[in-house]
């Protein structure tokens, strides 16, 4: 029995709070987008209404792509994210499968250690790690970040996959074992194909975290040619006290697109991964 009055009340009760949170979440992105489209005369004018773009232009995007290394940084970021994600998924499975399925002495301890390593934040490790990377001669190579990103992504993927693996029924594996398949065959041919949703969740997270990473990239990558987007934008579009606001906003927007795209395709997997760890409790 929805009367006209009830419907208005319902709409208000839903959309007042939800609308508030939506505006809060999206306003900075709106700001980023319109600033990237404004000509400098409008960007730095105090007299015009700053909520609207009067003369939209793509000049900042053109400048960003032609005058800076942005395309190269994007390529570097993508390459590093894909490699780091792949390494993390492979090593993560190698940790998670035995922990989820096998009984052996020390399994509990290893599981706890993996969880604890996942929670160790980078600022605790970056100084000694910088020294290690330098001694290995990996400074200013993409290899340095391809190797160091998985230090946080492997325990994370392992933890997420461990939770997922435990929800997969064991019967198929047991049947394969009875038919004489080795443990490795059972895992590769029977078990892993069942776990695609888990891999997608872990993969999106690893990819997103790789795109977001800043501290290791800032320390290990100091040449333009090897920089990633976050470091390139901060280090090269802010020169001393001079902020290239238009290009900064264009770079921030373009740099967010890969993550946003992947996320929009797999948002359900993302939410499932986000909530699996805590809701299981």
């Amino acid at each position, binding site marked *: 029995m929805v009367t006209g009055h009830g419907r208005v009340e319902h709409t208000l009760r839903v959309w007042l709070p939800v609308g508030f949170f939506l505006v809060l979440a999206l306003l900075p992105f709106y700001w980023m987008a319109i600033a990237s489209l404004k000509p400098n005369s409008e960007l730095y004018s105090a007299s015009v209404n700053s909520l609207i773009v009067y003369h939209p232009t793509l000049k900042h995007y053109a400048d960003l792509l032609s005058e800076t290394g942005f395309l190269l940084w994007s390529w570097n970021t993508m390459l590093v994210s894909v490699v780091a994600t792949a390494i993390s998924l492979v090593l993560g499975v190698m940790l998670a499968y035995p922990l989820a399925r096998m009984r052996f002495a020390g399994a509990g301890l290893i599981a706890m250690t993996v969880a604890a390593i996942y929670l160790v*934040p980078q600022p605790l490790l970056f100084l000694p790690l910088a020294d290690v990377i330098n001694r290995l001669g990996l400074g200013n190579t993409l290899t340095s970040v391809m190797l160091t990103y998985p230090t946080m992504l492997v325990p994370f993927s392992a933890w997420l996959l461990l939770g997922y693996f435990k929800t997969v029924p064991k019967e198929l594996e047991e049947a394969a074992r009875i038919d004489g398949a080795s443990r490795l065959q059972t895992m590769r041919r029977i078990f892993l194909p069942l776990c695609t949703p888990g891999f997608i969740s872990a993969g999106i997270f690893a990819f997103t975290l790789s795109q977001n990473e800043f501290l290791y990239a800032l320390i290990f990558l100091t040449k333009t040619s090897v920089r990633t987007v976050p470091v390139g934008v901060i280090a090269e579009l802010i020169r001393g006290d001079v902020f290239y606001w238009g290009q900064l906003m264009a770079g921030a927007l373009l740099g967010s697109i890969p993550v946003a795209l992947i996320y929009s395709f797999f948002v359900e997997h993302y939410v499932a991964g986000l909530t699996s760890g805590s809701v299981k409790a």
Partner: protein
Amino acid sequence: MTIRSEPLIGVARPARRRPASLAAWLDRESVFSWLMMALPLLFLAALVGYPFCYGILLSLMNRPVAQPGTFVGLQNFITDFHDPVFWRVAVNTFVYTGVATLLKMVGGLCLALAMNQNFRMKNIVRALLLLPFIVPTVLSTVAWMWMLDPAFSVVNRLLIGLGMPRPGPSWLGNPTLAMISIIVINTWRGLPFYGITLLAGLQTVPPELYEAATIDGASGWQRFRYVTLPLLQPIILIVTLFSVIFTFADFQLVYVLTHGGPQNATQLFATYAFDIGMGAGQLGLGASVALMMLPALALLIVALTLYMRRSG
């Protein structure tokens, strides 16, 4: 008869015995497990375990960058304790973590309750609300930097429009306002994580409980206080521990927005360790500052790990 008695199997067996026993050995659960985990465990030992121990060693050394170090015992930690900036950093980090976590907890709960209603386009709204959390922090912080820019701040234009005298507050130039700014931006970024996780928790509360409470005459607030909150408590605890760990050790937001300034007003452990270790090139002293995070972090990490094991 003679053909039948040919010992076919007897001939085949000795030839197969060794591979078969190797296969059997490999098939043992413990052997298979440790062989499978060897590579990832070695990887983590080399790039997490070793740097961690090496960091402790570094903190006991005077080690200028690109020079050999000398062992100085606890001298770096004594230097830290006599450094007024260090204490400022400690207070900043606790204030930043405490206030931001509280805001995220309360705001996230409100967000979850707002989203836990029936309305159209809910999935799209949820996806949009999560955007601050998934967009690379550095890039969204740049947008905030522009919104708080001393000369062109949109926030100030709005405030002046509302009647505040020009030129409006200097968000990143005033020590207190700078701290408020980094707390607000950290909250803005972390709120969706809280909200969406708590929403998932809310959806697991059986509706019968609310119906029973309503029949017993419970008001909306009472239903929230005595049904919702107790059931959400484990999730709130886990999300909070997660959030506290990563807020406590935050680096990128502050590095980009204020570099720890003005006058170290927003300097946190991570950014200060970076300034000393990378900026001033004092690896040993920097490592000692970073290690000062360890007691609090270790406590939180152990608590969360134990809690996840108990409930997982």
